[in-house]
């Protein structure tokens, strides 16, 4: 399949290979068997389809934003329509795509299997979380259909409570409900990781993907309720005139910012941590080496989760907070860079002297490493008080968080989808086409967002639909990049769909990876394991794998 001879892909003989007769995909048939399933793998697939749907809606809004910004004049849409575009883009992408992206799809699918369990601890609650996701999604969509919402994704008061006649309450209700879907996912993961590990699966034998999802789950469980109560107060303030954030009644809009960012800053770690877990798995597999500094990488996930709760005020440096607290929060913000850097360095040392091959997941992982590093470093600039006052509310911020969220998380998500696609479907994706998509995404991404760093540095504010003519060249570059990026995201949709029917049969372990999920059939049985595994080796133990493979051959021979 691969264009290079340097590959670790090990597929069964395609002339004789078939998919397993029985798997979670064909255990039961019919739409209802999917809609009422308790199987974590089926729920993962339901989530995958749902978040893909919302990703392309959110992406369409991104396209409209870039189209409007092609010219300096406000010529495509009116300014309040433009406000609705970026608000819907933000709400959909953050709450309906990024937060559930890796945990709800790959996490749901893989966490029980990686732990050697038959399912998550609470299958019904898992299904409930998917339904809540859709109920929240429908509220958000109805806010969109009824005429949109233009608060930005942050629901900033008193703008959201007093000055807008758009569907704030509908959208906030949607986000509130989606929040519970995410709480239930996190709760399920934590209980499963604590209580359902197979015999011998100690905490420090768990794959790093589990550790990072565990850290993200802690954030979901502790952070999301604060967002929920904040949105309740916003809705009550709008509907019945409660006065908690209303300055005319003695309330303080700054309190809203504190409560909102108390969730929403940890939320960016909810979005990025599971992606980091994917990167650990992919980099280890395609370098044929145990992740360097396993313990450090595991604990750095937990450290990011903990520090993440103590940095929220850096979103508010220009909002009139006390200088002393701003100093403290600036310092704490820079501290988060330490565990992130620990991860980056350990991945780099994993690559060092590894037998690196360049399959698609690895290409995405390389994209992640570079782009996340840029996104993270610019985050440190923004954490510095003086720089922040110059750069905040400009396109520099927009570029920064898109480097982390899109360049980081989306790259990691695509790396994970390609990496585990053979496990989920039993079939390989087309290798050369997917490499093309990975490269296209990388080029398109940089073309879109690098110019925005410059624009922001030069002072172009975010959230305006008109700008001075001297910014046009960079904006045209950015819009051109967004087009390329759009193609890069459409490609996987097409060829992954194609591969469902025509892809090569993958076999159990096409990557010769060490995780428990690769030792069972692809696609797995509903009960995952015919025999509960007993784990007697560390994670990423390639010698153990080689030994095991050898033995299997001898036994068969």
């Amino acid at each position: 399949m691969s264009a290079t001879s340097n590959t670790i892909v090990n597929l069964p003989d395609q002339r004789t290979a078939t998919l397993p007769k029985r798997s979670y995909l064909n255990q039961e048939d019919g739409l209802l068997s999917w809609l009422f399933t308790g199987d974590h793998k089926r729920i993962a697939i339901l989530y995958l389809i749902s978040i893909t749907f919302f990703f392309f809606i959110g992406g369409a809004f991104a396209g409209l934003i870039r189209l409007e910004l092609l010219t300096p004049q406000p010529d495509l849409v009116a300014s309040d329509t433009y406000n609705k575009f970026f608000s819907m883009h933000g709400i959909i992408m953050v709450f309906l795509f990024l937060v559930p992206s890796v945990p709800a799809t790959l996490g749901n699918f893989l966490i029980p299997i990686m732990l050697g369990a038959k399912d998550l601890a609470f299958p019904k609650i898992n299904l409930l979380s998917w339904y809540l996701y859709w109920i929240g999604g429908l509220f958000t969509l109805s806010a969109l259909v009824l005429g949109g919402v233009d608060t930005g994704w942050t629901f900033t008061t008193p703008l959201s409570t007093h000055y807008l006649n758009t569907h704030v309450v509908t959208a906030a209700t949607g986000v509130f409900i989606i929040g519970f879907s995410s709480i239930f996912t996190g709760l399920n993961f934590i209980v499963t990781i604590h209580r359902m590990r197979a015999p011998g699966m100690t905490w420090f034998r768990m794959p790093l993907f589990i550790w990072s999802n565990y850290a993200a789950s802690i954030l979901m469980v502790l952070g999301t309720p604060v967002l929920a109560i904040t949105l309740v107060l916003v809705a009550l303030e709008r509907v019945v005139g409660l006065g908690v954030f209303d300055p005319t009644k003695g309330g303080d809009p700054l309190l809203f910012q504190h409560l909102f960012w108390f969730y929403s800053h940890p939320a960016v770690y909810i979005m990025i941590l599971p992606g980091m877990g994917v990167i650990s798995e992919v980099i280890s597999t395609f370098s044929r080496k145990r992740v360097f500094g396993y313990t450090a990488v595991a604990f750095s996930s937990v450290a990011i989760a903990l520090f993440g709760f103590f940095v929220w005020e850096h979103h508010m440096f220009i909002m009139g907070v006390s200088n002393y607290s701003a100093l403290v929060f600036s310092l704490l913000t820079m501290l988060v860079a330490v565990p992130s850097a620990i991860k980056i360095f350990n991945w780099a040392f994993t690559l060092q002297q590894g037998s690196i091959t360049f399959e698609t997941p690895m290409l995405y992982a390389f994209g992640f490493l570079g782009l996340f590093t840029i996104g993270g470093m610019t985050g440190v600039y923004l954490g510095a008080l003086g720089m922040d006052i110059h750069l905040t509310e400009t396109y520099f911020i927009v570029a920064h968080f898109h480097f982390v969220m899109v360049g980081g998380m989306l790259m990691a998500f695509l790396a994970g989808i390609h990496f585990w696609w053979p496990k989920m479907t039993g079939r390989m994706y087309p290798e050369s086409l997917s490499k093309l998509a990975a490269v296209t995404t990388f080029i398109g991404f940089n073309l879109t967002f690098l110019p925005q760093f410059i624009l922001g540095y030069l002072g172009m504010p975010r959230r305006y639909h008109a700008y001075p003519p001297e910014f046009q060249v960079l904006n045209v570059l950015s819009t051109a990049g967004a087009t390329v990026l759009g193609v890069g995201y459409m490609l996987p949709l097409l060829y992954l769909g194609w591969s469902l029917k025509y892809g090569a049969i993958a076999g159990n372990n096409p990557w010769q990876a060490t995780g428990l999920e690769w030792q069972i059939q692809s696609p797995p049985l509903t009960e995952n394991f015919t025999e509960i595994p007993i784990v007697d080796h560390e994670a990423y133990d390639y010698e153990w794998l080689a030994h095991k493979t050898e033995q299997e051959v001898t036994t068969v021979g």
Partner: protein
Amino acid sequence: MDNVIVATRSHTHEAGASEEHAHVALPQHRHHFETEQQQREAGTFGMWLFLLTEIMFFGGLFMSYLLYRNWYHDAFVVASNQLSIKLGAFNTAVLIGSGFFMALGVWAAEVRKKGLLVLFLVLTTLLGLVFLGVKYDEYHEKWEKHHIPGAHFDVSEFVNPHAYGIKEEPLAPDMAQKTQVFFSLYFAMTGMHALHMIIGIVLLGWLTYRAHRGDFSSGYVAPIENFGLYWHFVDIVWLFLFPLLYLINRHPGS
């Protein structure tokens, strides 16, 4: 020899499904748990985690309350004096009683006394309803006195208390406005608490029905135990709300 990941256990889910379930006394045992004990532990752990999210949920409100109380101390004291300690104390007793019967209910389930369990669940529900009734009465009084935040909120009682026969020091008009923040938080906090009670009472109805049907008569008590945790949590929230809203700093100087 250590290099075999999959070792055969005494039973497998596939082949020996019937044998595996043979030692399981309860029909409620779910197949993906290895043992009943694992299932029970997972359920309780999950419930505690859920209560942790509830603490964070109410935590946002408590945080706001403490902040504003600090800022607008005078307004909060005067507004707090408008609440009836008698009704608050009565409701506290009612809720503690309700929690007491819930604890007895858990005990009754554990010793498999079906009749007692149903009785205790009904008593828990009744006391919960009494609490809500008193709360409704308190809310209604606020409505009549125009103490509900919003368009009809009236501060004249606080600016000119003597005209209304209230023994309070008058507040400056801008400080009197801040009583609206107190009542906003009062309604948000007690309202969220009451909402949790209503959800709890709906669940109690369902549990009572199941208890009556005999679902918990064979030693399977996880739903009762976990609901008990939830109900006690709701009680505890009230035990914080009562002193914060009704009791502290009443009548300073007296």
